[in-house]
């Protein structure tokens, strides 16, 4: 494999003790590409994207992100992380800081952007995710959907090259899912490189170029969302889809 993507997994393996959570993963994500990762719980999909920004470390194989090889002594992980936004299932907003402070913390302290400038940009980002009136609210005063939108704005504040989403709508009440997905669609349409762990088929069909299906730590199937969701090729993906689509 000679071409280099924005994110390049080459024969990556990872174990938790005796458990082989990632099995020989080879996957390349191009710049501006949106890839949706789905699969049953415990299939390793969260672990997969957590490796990309070093929240998990890999045991063997190569993982190259934005031209830098992870685990290489020459790679400054803290610096690389500033180029990668990560949206958590449970939001993980800082509870002691307001929405605006959540968004401006890293730009001020990591990017060293002057406070007034960062706050200006932060307000614009919060307005963009539809929360112009919640700038001074604390996370506890916001609904789940609002918190997740602040979390996305917090990532965008760093102007990342890559955005990773770890089941961003799984902890939300159903009526709040679309407000978060709308924001994600807008981010995708601006040309962000994205990997999204989700089972939201509508989102996948709308913006993703590729859907990847994982089971037991391995990538079982990969194709366009259209192909994957309407005509899955393997028994395992068929069985999985019949479970999540039954209702």
């Amino acid at each position, binding site marked *: 494999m000679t071409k280099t993507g924005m994110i390049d997994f080459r024969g990556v393996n990872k174990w938790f003790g005796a458990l082989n959570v990632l099995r020989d993963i080879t996957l390349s994500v191009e710049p501006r590409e949106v890839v949706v990762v789905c699969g049953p719980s415990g299939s390793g999909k969260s672990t997969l994207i957590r490796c990309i920004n070093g929240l998990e470390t890999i045991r063997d194989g190569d993982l190259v992100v934005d031209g830098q090889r992870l685990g290489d002594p020459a790679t400054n992980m803290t610096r690389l992380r500033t180029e990668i936004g990560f949206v*958590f299932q449970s*939001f993980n907003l*800082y509870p002691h800081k307001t929405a605006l402070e959540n968004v401006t913390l890293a730009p001020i302290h990591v990017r060293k952007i002057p406070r007034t400038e960062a706050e200006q940009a932060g307000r614009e980002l919060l307005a963009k995710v539809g929360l112009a009136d919640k700038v001074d609210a604390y996370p506890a005063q916001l609904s789940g959907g609002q918190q997740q939108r602040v979390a996305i704005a917090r990532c965008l504040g*760093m102007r990342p090259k890559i955005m990773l989403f770890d089941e961003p709508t799984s902890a939300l009440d159903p009526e709040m899912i679309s407000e978060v997905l709308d924001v994600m669609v807008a981010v995708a349409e601006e040309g962000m490189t994205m990997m999204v762990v989700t089972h939201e088929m509508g989102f996948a069909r709308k913006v993703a170029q590729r859907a990847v299906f994982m089971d037991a730590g391995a990538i079982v199937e990969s194709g366009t969302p259209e192909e994957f969701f309407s005509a899955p090729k393997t028994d395992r993906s068929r069985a999985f889809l019949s479970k999540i689509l039954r209702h």
Partner: protein
Amino acid sequence: MIWQQLQSLAGSYPLALRGLGMTVVLSLISLVLGTLLGFGLGILRTGGNRLISAAIGAWVDLIRGTPFLVQIFLIFFILPELGIELDAFTAGIIALTNLAACFICEIVAAGIRSVPTGQVEAALASGLSRWQRMRQVVLPQAMRIVLPPLVGQYVLLIKDSSVVSAIGLTDLTRVGWLVVQRVPNGLLVFFLVGLGYFIVCYPLIMLARRLEQRMGAAHGEVQL
């Protein structure tokens, strides 16, 4: 008659004030130093380095598991044998600071461990350095857990400072011992000594209680 006995103690008033002053100064200095050192140790204790963490843990256990009187004797009488001359005041400060730091270290470490992993991961993911994560994300949240027991610990440490009288420092307790040799009613003397400690400690006890209530309320409110 109690009035007469109090009058007989009136002459000891300047000495008592000096003792109270010594207790307050000794406590204040060692609590400030102990708090700074305790936070540093607590942060290192929960940091990534296992060796450092284990070394601090062993020292904290040793200090918490031995009587303060023994520690202060060791510092005051053994260190000079090794060529380190200490006056009683410095020895008292060192012993109390060390004791305070060890207890505060464990309080701070417990507070830091109480901060959800997701908070650290979020800070990590946005590229904050180790110190920025601690300063901006972890410590402010840990303080909710740390503050009430910290102030409570201050009260205990102020009372423990009475042990420095054993190496001849004229603190409130030692003043009690001196005065009681001159007057008939020892019970009254130590009642007054106790009152002196209580006057210093009571505001802190009240503060600890208020903090506990406030933090308890905040805890329910700040929920993810």
